[in-house]
């Protein structure tokens, strides 16, 4: 797939096009004595969709949470549009957060609010839009993820897992974010619903012209939504390249992972040290 980095002539906010949309450099994070991120470097270009693959406990989630600002790295740099965001003050943090949309693993819908208010939440609370106008946009976004009008007034607990994911996606795109984060978007879904969600993710990211960073261990999902794939192992990126090269990476770790073999250089930690 062709990189879309050079297709636009100028970024609307004036940043140079060769500045990566998101750049992580030398990221380190430890919990107690366990070093989870170990000098991680990663860069995502403008309007590019990067998928980070890796097993459980390799630091995928921690990396994503650091990138979005939900967790502070011990050291290292996180640049959004070239702006350092690793140690932002709360007010600046809120400003940067407005560029983001995130689909959580368990959808993380607010169970006290009906579906449409979930989708409209960022518009009403973040952008101070009137409730009636926000509801119109919410209904539009729900339609965009293939949900009927009647779903809007239900509560999240009344929906199936797949529908919750769709609502989560609608909520993530409602404020037209510049960067979308996807945390294991297909985990817990049947293969068909997983494919539906993958299609929706590709469509939404393309419609918004957004940059996307996803983490997953589902290779079918990674192949479908990625322009580029990176593999994380022991808190570092050990391989990255276009999705077309994933089968010829020449990297034994990547080969073991994408073929799901128990034998290979990656040894599963079966006992806690």
């Amino acid at each position, binding site marked *: 797939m062709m990189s879309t980095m050079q297709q636009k002539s100028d970024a609307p906010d004036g940043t140079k096009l060769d500045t990566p949309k998101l750049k992580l450099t030398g990221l380190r994070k430890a919990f107690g004595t366990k070093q989870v991120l170990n000098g991680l470097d990663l860069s995502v270009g403008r309007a590019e969709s990067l998928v980070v693959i890796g097993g459980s406990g390799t630091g995928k989630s921690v990396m994503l949470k650091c990138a979005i600002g939900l967790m502070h790295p011990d050291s290292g740099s996180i640049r959004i549009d070239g702006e350092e965001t690793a140690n932002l003050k709360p007010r600046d943090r809120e400003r940067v957060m407005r560029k983001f949309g995130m689909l959580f693993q368990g959808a993380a819908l607010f169970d006290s609010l009906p579906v449409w208010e979930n989708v409209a939440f*960022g518009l009403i*609370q973040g952008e101070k839009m009137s409730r009636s106008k926000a509801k119109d946009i919410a209904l539009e976004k729900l339609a965009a993820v293939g949900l009927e009008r009647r779903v809007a007034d239900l509560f999240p607990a009344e929906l199936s897992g797949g529908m919750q994911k769709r609502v989560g996606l609608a909520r993530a795109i409602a404020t037209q974010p510049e960067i979308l984060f996807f945390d294991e978007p297909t985990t817990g879904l049947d293969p068909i619903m997983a494919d539906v969600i993958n299609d929706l993710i590709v469509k939404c990211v393309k419609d918004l012209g957004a940059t996307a960073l996803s983490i997953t261990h589902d290779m079918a999902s990674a192949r479908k939504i990625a322009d580029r794939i990176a593999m994380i192992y022991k808190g570092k990126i050990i391989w990255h390249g276009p999705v077309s090269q994933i089968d010829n990476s020449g990297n034994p770790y990547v080969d073991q992972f994408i073929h799901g073999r128990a034998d290979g250089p990656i040894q599963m930690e079966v006992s806690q040290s």
Partner: protein
Amino acid sequence: MGFLTTTGRAFLIFLEATGRLMLFTGVAISHCFRPPFYLRLIGRQMIDIGYYSLPVVGLTALFTGMVLALQSFTGFARFQAEGAVATVVVLSITRELGPVLAGLMVAGRIGASMAAEIGTMRVTEQVDALSTLATNPFKYLVVPRLIAGLTMLPLLVLVADIIGVFGGFLISVYRLDFNAAAYISRTWEFLEPMDVISGLVKAAMFGFVIALMGCYHGYQSRGGAQGVGAATTNAVVSSSILILVFNYLITGLFFS
């Protein structure tokens, strides 16, 4: 040496928890004074804490007033001081039992539900989701609860004071054969404004402590259903103990 290590470790854990709580409190209070304010949420919390706690607080106050009248009557009869029943009831209720019992009942009702709700939001990543939607979780979740707790508990206690005194009146007049008019005038005779005010100040403090403990333990909870359960228990136990501690401290401030 083993003993010293254990003691030292426990002390360090205690200091760490205290420090974390202080930081949480500082951040929460600072957000109380900075916009945006979520008036709709503050209103909803006020109704939840103030209005829906009325039955349980009212019943507690009623029976406490009734039992106080009975107890002090039978006790004081031993030295012919039955006339003091009205004064004992009104002073005990306004200064002590109204705020403390209302506080403990609300700690069980509200503190637990706050910890469970915020704890569940925490473990299901809803708190993180708030942040990604450019909404500060402290402003959205913690501040409305603190403000509602601080303002609603005094109102609840005022109602509890009235119902408690009325409970004492009912027993004294209909069971112990006091004269109704004399009982009421005895109730007013030795009551000073400071008796009621000290009780209301206590109530405000208790309301703040209940909401703070509920939010803090909910916010800190980790690890699924078990974590939320532990947060709920910790919220109720710690706010109950803090209520008793602050009750002593505030009483000392007012009446020593």
